[in-house]
């Protein structure tokens, strides 16, 4: 067992983990943060995307011990004070989800995309989300959801959520 210290959604945890524990299993099973999902075993689907120190990462491809000392944000940490993040709003408004299984990872990836490119074109959104798979929506409304969030975040002049 190794002891790690991580700050997840603003709260610091000291945990004993097996060195081989994947970050996604640590989040889901030790911290009970089950909003981060697992959809594959080859790092293709992106259902497990979280932010480590502000960057989007597939948490199925990171060991929990590698996150020692890191600040992590999961889907549960995106809404602030009961206020949905514009991306969450966008997915709801634009019907950007159906079964909702890919949605947390999709939103977390889109967040990183908008951090890097606050005014993405449709093409840039599609390419920016290449690491996330959705089987329900055919992506068109996901693109609209991200556009909605970009507009809202630009209109308000700040980036709510963090």
């Amino acid at each position: 067992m190794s002891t790690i210290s991580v700050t997840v959604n603003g709260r610091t945890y000291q945990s004993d983990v097996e060195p081989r524990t994947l970050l996604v299993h640590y989040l889901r099973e030790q911290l009970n943060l089950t909003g981060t999902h697992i959809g594959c075993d080859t790092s293709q689907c992106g259902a497990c995307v979280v932010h480590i120190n502000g960057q989007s990462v597939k948490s199925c491809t990171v060991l929990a011990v590698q996150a020692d000392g890191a600040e992590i944000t999961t889907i549960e940490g995106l809404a602030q004070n009961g206020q949905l993040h514009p991306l969450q709003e966008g997915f709801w408004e634009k019907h950007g989800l159906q079964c909702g299984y890919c949605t947390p990872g999709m939103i977390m990836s889109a967040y990183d995309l908008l951090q890097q490119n606050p005014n993405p074109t449709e093409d840039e959104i599609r390419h920016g989300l290449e690491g996330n798979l959705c089987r329900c929506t055919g992506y068109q409304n996901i693109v609209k959801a991200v556009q909605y969030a970009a507009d809202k975040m630009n209109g308000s002049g700040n980036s709510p959520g963090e």
Partner: protein
Amino acid sequence: MTTVTKMVGQSLKRREDPKLITGKGNFLDDIKLQGMSHAAILRSPYAHAKINSIDTSKAKALPGVIAIFTGDDMMDINPLPCAWQAGRVQNNANTPRALSAGKALYAGDGIAMVVAENRYIARDALDLIEVDYEPLPVVVDAKKATEAGAPQLHENAPNNICMTWDCGHKDATDAAFSSAEVTVKEQIINQRLIPTPMETRGALARYDEATGEFTVWMTSQAPHVMRLLLTAFVFGIPETKLRCISPNVGGGFGQKIFCYADMAFTMWAARKLGRPVKFVEDRSENYRSSTHGRDHITDVEIAGTKDGTITGLRIETWANLGAYLSTIAPGIPTTLYGRIATGVYKIPAAYCKVHGVYTNTAMVDAYRGAGRPEASYLIERMVDRFAAEIGMDPAEVRRKNFIQPSDFPYDNGMGLLPYDSGNYEPALDRALAMVGYADFRNEQAEARKQGKYLGLGISSYVEICGVAPSAWIGLPGEGWGAGLWESANIRVHLTGQVVVTTGSLPHGQGVETTFAQIVADELGVPYESVLIEHSDTAGTPFGYGTYGSRSLAVGGTALYKSVAKVKEKAKKIAAHMLEANPADIEYADGKAYVKGSPDQAKTLGEIALQASVAYSLPEGVEPFLDETTYYDPPNCTFPFGTHIAIVEVDGATGMVAIKRYVGVDDVGNPINPLIIDGQLHGGIAQGIAQALYEHGVYDENGQLVSGTLMDYAVPNAAMLPNYELDRTVTPSPVNPMGVKGAGEAGTIGSAQAIMNAVIDALAPFGVKHLQMPATAERVWRAMQSH
């Protein structure tokens, strides 16, 4: 009460979403129980092998391992049932057991189960199990499996043939062909697809020794049916001893309809060990061991006149069923395929013969459209082939042969119930107008001069939705041997809040939102005051579940009828309260009043309170507003439409780029257009994916080459276009809301639009047909070979 705004027809955002966008969903693997253990399954690496021995001693000694079981341990439960033995299956329905014993019939067949304290230990233990396999010859191709000398999977199925089925009129069809001016023949392959719901499948079983009751949380589209099959068929226990719960389900697409081994082995082990047992598939396990879709090899011929009238259609299909029969597998390539093979056309003579074949591959069952995409692909490709053969515009061939509005209800002669309603030409015309068809051919000719290969593909489709009528689908020999109705209960509580329970259940379809819209309008209560409960066999009436685009047309109509019953009872009670004759009472906007005196109305809330406290009710009227309907419709519904794709093929690489995708669909009266369009988008994405990307491939040894998401090309956002949608509205006469269903239409209408476009683009190379998926390599090779 204020006047209620009409909800039906509005694009309401979904009430399902808040928990899903905040990470608060409750999917199977999110559930933890006290004392829960974790299962992992050892799966045969061989596609066909005798199992001489299994040594579990080393694995059992691993700390944290609770128990290890093999197929021999579970012989006290029965194999999983095949519930829909359509297609004239006779005495050779071979179904899987919880674990296979003695033999493995496909790579991925489960042969041993580890139960451990956590999933890591369970997986470690798998590596310590030693199995002595004796590999046997393998066959993966459905047509080859029927040939002399092919490896045999089951003693009771000579030549691996599970069933041979036909529909239509053989003699008339043969006659039509022998006298035809033009005939065109093709072998068309509808490749194997892997459904890939983003959440894999699994089960979590708990057994209560004191009561003898099981509770199973499962990734299921049909928990009531699973309860029936697992108790009455697999375990031989009373139905009441099992409660099935579908929590949030991360996509179904058919793969989650069926009764699976994991439901049985988690139950069996939970009872044996006295601890809850959870099993959740890895993605690669889901790929190897859960059901696949399609996999047809078809010889097809179309006959017609030189001026474009189709006179005959003759089909022979080898449908790969996999190593065993899955729950409803025989019905998919028969009832849901051959019977709709003539599509939107009046074809005077048609015949379809289907061989259902066992092979050393994962089971094949219903997947996203289930039979109907295979049928629509076939006829729409052949109509294009016919048009090319006679040199006629493919749009005009379609128009010339369409079933006309005056022909409905239309009997297609294939043993289906009559098509309910349709008006195919406006959808075609609208789609042609949207793509600018008149100008396209000039543009295409110009582009060809510059070495650019544009192609346009048309697909006019019809499909079978609202899959139900028990009198049809339940026919002995052809059908379930069971009904296929749907249920809905509605209760108005004394606070005026409305609680609906339904046998339908959503896993992305927005059933909670759509159903609440219907109740709000019909009952005249605020949308927010309507709660839709589902997915738990405790507390909901028996229902057949959500698949076959049936939730709205069947489940929704059950709800509609229950609301009508509540209104009738409310009127009686209101009449009593108003001291009026019940015949004089009207109900509108949530209020009951004497005709002409809406000022003296009683609100539904007041009536519900009166019905609930019940100190004064009319004679013979029971307390409480509580009504249930078990609705068995008189017919299916038949949505239709035209999809058109424009593609450009790169002459140097064979890459296909989609320039436009237009869909004009008719799903009957729309309830929530936002949700309908979303359903269509996703369906179209799957059709495009089949046409261009996806292929479940087995090698000759029966190894699934496309066994992970690294190898199986589920498209991402950059691989799909925008969909330009419009609709026509032809209400269904089958149900009072005039709805048809939208869950599968997109998939059923789309693959052939893309393929027809690709093949049109390749016309300068003399290409007449190309098998799916039209990968760059395949397209490039087609260009080189001419």
